[in-house]
């Protein structure tokens, strides 16, 4: 489409893919796509969930072999036959689902496979920790290199992943939805980092579903749709609406769904909820038909609070009333039985059960309801799974496809589907549209509103400011485990909640 744009400037691409195809059983993930990355420039790769973005990343990092096509690096045809080869030619990636080692330290995770060694071939722990500290500081992460990874939250783990990608000398840096788990502050730091990498002449591939980010950081775009390359060119020559249209294949408008139902009686009442380490004195109430938003920076204790309401951890103090009954929720089973469900933030670790097919994932929390004296009916399971897959526009080859073979955004839909299938009273969504493409995101938003209008009470935890403001009837801001502000839809503004979350000025509404 905008092919002319790239001929007009003289720089040659550092990396060039052409005619790449990749098939999986029942799915054509990529068909004859091309992609160029230029030194000192950020190329944004956009496309819907399942368009094939992560697949091309895996081809570039030697994890998958393409069925067809060629790869040129510095005008030389190259075969990326394994991850080792890819990293030798200087391609590193921060993957969408990061693979890391929970029982190793931060430093060990960063330097795994290429730790500094002394003349005897032993690892120089001290040097490794120093280098790790430096790298972490470079990306603005203030983490202790010696603590074990399992003690970190998902966002900090992500930062470790970024540090790892930068620990080797690279020419090409690939970031597959790097900001999905990060909040506003860390995203700003990531931008600074990307600018620095650009200045160093690295070629960067940036995958994101957030258009404001793309316009802010990227120079070029490439659009994939259903495994095909639809268009590419320079971003400053293309309006956002056109880019969205190219990606989704239809016109989209920009409105959050409005409430049509009326607020009902109070369903959930939380009073003085406290936890020994994570949060303190949290009180709020939630009405039927209401969407309550929680905003805060990473580490503000939002996820910990939600997990506590869901029975993953026990509160040290405080009371929870649901439909005027005081409950002591000790485990998730009780929470689910009482109608409180939680869509976790860590999709791979806590959300989907990899190794099980889609339909078994969807029915997992409803097994007791679906079974007759403990016996399951496959027909019933398939029909439930099918109806929620359709509602959420899941993209899958079949219902018995293993869930780990789905694209990231489609895995998220499976997690949402499994909770909707339990027909809850209160649904807590922790970063619900993380990694979901713009079209489906609107579908999820519309669906959330529909649920609320049908009388469900919804809590949404989100680090995305437009989302939390656009969707919520009320917003609570948390900082360092405390509630610092509460706003109604009428009084809220992005500046206010950002200020409260960062603690620039104390303000309690």
């Amino acid at each position: 489409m905008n092919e002319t744009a790239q001929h007009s400037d003289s720089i040659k691409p550092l990396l060039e893919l052409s005619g790449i195809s990749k098939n999986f059983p029942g799915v054509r993930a990529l068909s004859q796509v091309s992609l160029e990355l230029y030194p000192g420039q950020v190329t944004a790769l956009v496309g819907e969930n399942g368009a094939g973005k992560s697949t091309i990343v895996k081809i570039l990092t030697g994890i998958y072999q393409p069925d067809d096509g060629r790869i040129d690096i510095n005008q030389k045809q190259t075969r990326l036959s394994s991850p080792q080869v890819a990293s030798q030619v200087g391609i590193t990636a921060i993957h969408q689902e990061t693979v890391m080692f929970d029982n190793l330290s931060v430093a060990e995770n960063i330097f795994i496979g290429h730790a500094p060694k002394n003349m005897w071939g032993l690892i120089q722990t001290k040097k490794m920790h120093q280098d790790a500290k430096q790298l972490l500081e470079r990306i603005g992460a203030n983490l202790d290199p010696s603590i074990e990874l399992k003690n970190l939250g998902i966002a900090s783990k992500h930062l470790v992943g970024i540090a790892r990608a930068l620990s080797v000398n690279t020419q090409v840096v690939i970031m597959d939805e790097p900001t999905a788990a990060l909040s506003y502050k860390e995203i700003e730091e990531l931008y600074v980092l990307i600018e620095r990498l650009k200045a160093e002449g690295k070629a960067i591939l940036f995958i994101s579903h957030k258009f404001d980010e793309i316009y802010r950081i990227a120079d070029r775009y490439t659009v994939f749709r259903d495994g095909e390359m639809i268009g590419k060119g320079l971003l400053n020559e293309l309006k956002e609406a056109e880019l969205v249209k190219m990606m989704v294949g239809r016109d989209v408008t920009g409105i959050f769904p409005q409430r049509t139902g009326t607020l009902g009686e109070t369903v959930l009442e939380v009073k003085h909820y406290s936890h020994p380490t994570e949060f303190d004195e949290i009180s709020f109430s939630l009405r039927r038909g209401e969407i309550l938003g929680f905003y805060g920076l990473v580490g503000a204790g939002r996820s910990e609070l939600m997990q506590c309401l869901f029975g993953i951890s026990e509160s040290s103090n405080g009371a929870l009333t649901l439909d005027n009954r005081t409950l002591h929720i000790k485990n998730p089973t009780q929470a689910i039985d009482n109608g409180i469900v939680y869509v976790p933030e860590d999709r791979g670790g806590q959300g989907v059960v990899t190794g099980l097919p889609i339909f078994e994932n969807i029915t997992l929390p409803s097994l007791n309801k679906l079974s007759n004296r403990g016996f399951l009916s496959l027909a019933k399971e398939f029909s439930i799974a099918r109806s929620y897959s359709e509602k959420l526009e899941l993209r899958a080859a079949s219902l018995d496809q293993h869930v780990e073979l789905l694209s990231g955004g489609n895995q998220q839909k499976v997690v949402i589907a499994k909770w909707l299938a339990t027909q809850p009273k209160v649904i807590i969504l922790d970063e619900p549209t993380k990694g979901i493409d713009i079209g489906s995101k609107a579908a999820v938003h519309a669906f959330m509103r529909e649920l609320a209008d049908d009388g469900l009470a919804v809590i949404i935890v989100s680090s995305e400011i437009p989302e939390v403001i656009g969707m919520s009837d009320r917003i609570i801001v948390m900082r360092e485990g405390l509630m610092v502000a509460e706003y109604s839809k009428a009084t809220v503004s992005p500046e206010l909640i950002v200020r409260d979350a960062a603690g620039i000025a104390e303000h309690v509404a």
Partner: protein
Amino acid sequence: MNSETQSVSAASQSYPDRLQSKLRRVLVSWELLLLCVAVFIFWLNTQASPYFLDPWNLSDATFNFTEKALIAFAMALLIISGEIDLSVASIIALSSTAMGYAVSIGMGTTELLIIGPLVGLACGAFNGLLVTRFGLPSIVATIGTMSLFRGISYIILGDKAYSGYPSDFAFFGQGYVYWVITFEVVLFAVFAIIYTLLLHRTSFGRSVFAIGNNPTAALFSGIRVNRIKFILFLLTGLMAGIAAVCLTSRLGSTRPSIALGWELEIVTMVVLGGVNILGGSGSIPGVVLAAFIMGLVTFGFGLLNVPGIVMSIFIGLLLIGVIGLPRVWTKGLHFWKSIVSR
């Protein structure tokens, strides 16, 4: 700046339940491969000895695997859930010792039938507590109880043996229900069906698979991970107790060395049956076939007068082979593909 959109119902997709037909799934299954192997070994046995096909002879052949298979069923569930119990053979010893003691103080068959499984259950509960309450890795905990349970038998029995079991007790290990069909074979068949249904048709079984694949996500889906694991240890202990009744009845005596080394054969049987040693997948029909295969091989070696030590070498090789083969197979496949694609 606002990138929010309203979806204009996207082209909806249809979802087939499954991509592969049932026939195709059966054809590529591990179970079919096992069935072929079982038939082949059966044929080998008929070649090795003309007496093999005699119904009474075949009936005798079943004693080689029925007791172990009873435990293997429960062990399969335990391994699928990501745990293991290496103390099962020692549970047999302790349970058998308890029954022997009961006889020595004058108890009858009914009491024995209660005591044997009950001791198994108690041992299972102990293992389960160690793993689910105190968080010990099951491989460590059950290596410990493996020594503990058998150690108690040694202390009670020393170099003596209990015998003198009541004559009607003999039925459970030596009796025939009808013609050549032994009580043990009936028990084996009944439990094979029960465990197949339990694992593949109930919500309990589904939870076992979920736990084996991702215990955290299972917990976050409202599955009581620890409770289910505890029940699995209980079941394994119970099955070991039931196997102890059969074995004691068949041997007619109890020594502390009873069922020595069985845990290895039982784990081999489970893994041969296609259960992933790391948890998460497997099937009971696979374990049933694996039981037949191991029984037939043992019997065949018996016919050929192969010494016992060769049998344990064979079991060891089988275990390594079964765990290693699939990996070698996929590596080979990759290699082949990379040659072809050049």
